[in-house]
């Protein structure tokens, strides 16, 4: 009977103790805020893990089509007064108009039948945004039946604007191969001023005068006969026709992706052109239908198809905007949270554990062994840890875990001095001598009598060192040395620095990650400061 109730009673006693000390830490305002922040962040971190681990996290750092889903470096929506209207178009439910024109040509006694087969789509939308979209993109999929029977194919895409002007994207004859063509092309119409340079999907037609951001970041996905250069040239020419050679008297260049929807007022400012826009697409091919049955002809005709998506990106995104890789910054903040917890907790817990054991022994052995141990710990304490971290992570590429290991190696001596002075006092206690008299070995005394009394207090104090760890990781990342696969806040800050976010005024790219870091660190400082007065007398005892 006693045995069963014992464990329960003991647990209840412990619980009571914990509850008491927890409530004590809640008394100062620092404690209240700290614990509240901790709980919120823990919940968020768990959510991030549940929702995005592991695929989403990897995707965030590399290899996902952020680029086609989100606008590039747009501010958060609450900071934008005039909003653009996002546009998303596809030909999914659009019926093509089919036109055919048959030509019968006789050459000697042979009769040839040629057929012009034209598929044309019209898709219109109304733009009524108060600002220009941040950029536009299109995806063009083209399937052309192959074989000797197809003689020529031609494609034409243009955008008819409300004021009757017309931007031609493509007006091109396509070489037809023996085996047919399948071609998908994705175009991000961003870039520099259209009149000097037109950057279409990252490939400049001319050398840009001033590039707002590096081109190489933009992935190029293009196969088949459609050439990006062709599109750039065509669009550039027709835009020049509409706007003239140097219409914009603004100091900032207007990217072509925005210029699609732009109108230049007489005083030279750029405003959105509201009204009905129509995309006109047509695909035409010339078929030699000589000696074909109607069924065969229909079969060949039906093999050609056109696939088209158009996106005009909003000029703001979410609560925290997007970065230059078109990733939502808010998502980055969320995904960085588990990493911050992992690094902070792992390093603090393990190094405190090691330090507490080490310090317990150093305090228990009052002879030369303790002396030597303290000298060694002193040496570790006076290592300049940042240069060493930099050097090691420079030479050997680190992962999150090896970085944690490295930090443990550098930080374990942190609690040793405090622990040792506690252990010295504890090992003076009569009950330690009583244990010795009974025959307990050193390891038993240290692990059963000294360490359990020391560890909780040191851990409570060690929480104060979490900010240092997180900041160190961020500093390493800024130098480009952190774990390249982990989406930490430091990585976001590094991107902001590398992409000159400060110069360009993309404040959301560095303000938010920095704030996340500050809040995370401050949480532990607040908790630590609240716990410290409870623990400090015991530490100095």
């Amino acid at each position, binding site marked *: 009977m006693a045995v069963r109730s014992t464990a329960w009673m003991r647990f209840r006693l412990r619980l009571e103790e914990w509850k008491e000390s927890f409530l004590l830490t809640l008394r100062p305002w620092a404690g209240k805020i700290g614990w509240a922040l901790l709980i919120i962040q823990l919940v968020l971190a768990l959510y991030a893990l549940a929702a995005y681990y592991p695929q989403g996290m990897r995707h965030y750092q590399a290899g996902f089509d952020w680029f086609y889903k989100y606008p590039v470096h747009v501010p958060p929506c609450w900071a934008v007064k005039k909003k653009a209207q996002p546009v998303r178009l596809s030909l999914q439910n659009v019926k093509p108009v089919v036109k055919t024109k048959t030509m019968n040509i006789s050459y000697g006694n042979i009769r040839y039948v040629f057929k012009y087969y034209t598929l044309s789509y019209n898709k219109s939308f109304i733009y009524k945004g108060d600002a220009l979209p941040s950029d536009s993109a299109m995806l063009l999929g083209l399937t052309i039946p192959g074989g000797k029977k197809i003689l020529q194919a031609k494609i034409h895409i243009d955008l008819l604007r409300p004021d009757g002007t017309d931007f031609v994207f493509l007006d091109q004859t396509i070489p037809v191969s023996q085996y047919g063509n399948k071609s998908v092309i994705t175009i991000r119409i961003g870039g520099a001023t259209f009149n000097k340079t037109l950057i279409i999907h990252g490939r400049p037609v001319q050398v840009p005068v001033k590039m707002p951001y590096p081109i190489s970041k933009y992935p190029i996905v293009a196969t088949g006969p459609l050439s990006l250069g062709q599109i750039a040239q065509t669009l550039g020419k027709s835009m020049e026709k509409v706007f003239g050679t140097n219409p914009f008297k603004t100091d900032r260049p207007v990217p072509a992706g925005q210029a699609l929807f732009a109108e230049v007022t007489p005083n030279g400012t750029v405003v959105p052109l509201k009204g009905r826009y129509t995309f006109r697409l047509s695909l035409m091919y010339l078929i030699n239908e000589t000696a074909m049955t109607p069924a065969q002809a229909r079969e060949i005709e039906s093999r050609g198809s056109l696939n088209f998506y158009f996106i005009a990106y909003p000029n703001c995104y979410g609560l925290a905007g997007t970065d230059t890789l078109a990733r939502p910054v808010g998502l980055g903040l969320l995904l960085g949270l588990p990493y911050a917890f992992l690094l902070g907790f792992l390093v603090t817990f393990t190094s405190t554990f090691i330090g507490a054991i080490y310090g317990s022994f150093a305090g228990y052995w009052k002879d030369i062994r303790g002396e030597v141990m303290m000298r060694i710990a002193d*040496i570790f304490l006076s290592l300049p840890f*940042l240069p*060493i971290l930099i050097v090691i992570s420079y030479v050997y590429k680190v992962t999150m875990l090896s970085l944690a290991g490295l930090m443990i190696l550098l930080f374990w001596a942190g609690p040793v001095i405090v622990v040792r002075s506690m252990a010295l006092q504890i090992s003076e206690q009569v009950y330690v001598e009583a244990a010795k008299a009974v025959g307990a070995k050193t390891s038993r005394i240290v692990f059963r009598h000294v360490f359990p009394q020391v560890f909780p207090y040191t851990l409570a104090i060690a929480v104060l060192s979490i900010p240092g760890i997180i900041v160190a990781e961020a500093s390493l990342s800024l*130098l480009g040395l952190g774990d390249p696969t982990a989406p930490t806040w430091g990585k976001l800050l590094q991107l902001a*620095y590398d992409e000159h976010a400060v110069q360009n005024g993309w404040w959301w790219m*560095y303000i938010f990650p920095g704030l996340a870091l500050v809040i995370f660190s401050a949480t532990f400082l607040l908790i630590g400061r609240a716990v410290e007065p409870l623990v400090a007398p015991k530490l100095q005892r």
Partner: protein
Amino acid sequence: MRWLVIKIVDFVIVLAAVTLIVAIIFTGPMSTFYKSQALQTVQMEMRAQSHQLTVAQNTIIGIAKGTVSPQDAADLINKLYQQGLLTKEERDKLLSGKVTVEEAQKIATALPKRLRAILTQQEFHAYGLDKPWYERSLKYFWNLLTFKPLNSTVLTTRYWPTQGSHNALDIVLERVPFSVLLFTTSSTLTVLIAVPLALWAARRPGSWIDNTVVAWSIFSVSMPWWWLAMVFIAFFTVKYHIFPQPWNVNVNFHDIKTLIDAAALPVFTVTILSIGDSAFRLRNIFLDIFNEDFVTVARAKGLPENMVLRKHVMRAAAPPLVTIVLFAIVLSVFSGAIITELVFNWPGLGRLYWEAIYAGDIPVVLELTYITTLLYLILRLTLDILYTLLDPRIKRA
């Protein structure tokens, strides 16, 4: 005296340990740095010598075909022999002209391989790669400790009177004054501001000034300093043009006005940040002192509060307190604040880290780590000794 001996011994041990660790990291068994660098040099040499190689090959085949007379080619053949590209028999054969076309072709095709082998051996020797790693590491360790010149691969000196030097030590040393300027100025300001601020806060615990000190200490510790620097740059130089934009300024010691202009924002930022931690520490120490007996006694004797502060608190506490503040600043500078220079485009040691890492300049990173460690340890030791001498409470056991 014992404490002094111990501190100096510790200094030497730590310096040696760090240097050894750094040397092993760079040149140890797991590092491929020097190997890849050596191979790269070999590649470049091969490319540089490719023309001469082709000439040699053509000559050899020409001798066999009879289009070149051995007498005309004698100089070249002898040179090749001296370089170790031909064996003795081959040379004799070629000089005598009695060589078949197949043989000549064989020799000609072997030439590039032999040249590469010889160059590789030379380079490996130059980098010490032909010795076991511990010998290499020990050599680098010793070279670092004794400041042996080390050639940088990419970076050169820019601020020294002799520009364009490839000596890694020069490259590092020319940056030291910049860092020293920035951080001594801001630590002086920090001490000047933090001590009165802390005293003010400690005299009225719980007042708004006290709460500000406490709250700011929390924030200044929990943020990367370079992040606040980014925010300040955006605010003070991009949004409002109060300070010059760091990326448009070229700092150097000849143009003092630009230097001061450019230093203003960094000094301001670093000072504000280091005040946070220092003022909080000092405030706590002051609170402790106020509770100590001699202050209570002085107060009880009816001395005016100002007198108590000046005569008892400040006189007892000031010198050690200043060292405490300086100690904290040194610690924070070397554990991350130095990276702030990067954001400010301030050509100190912190920025050099970034430059060297991005340029892949290993010798500079190596030298930089050594010099930084050395500076840190010297500062630590000095402050430690000062503190022990100044603080009457510390037992010099």
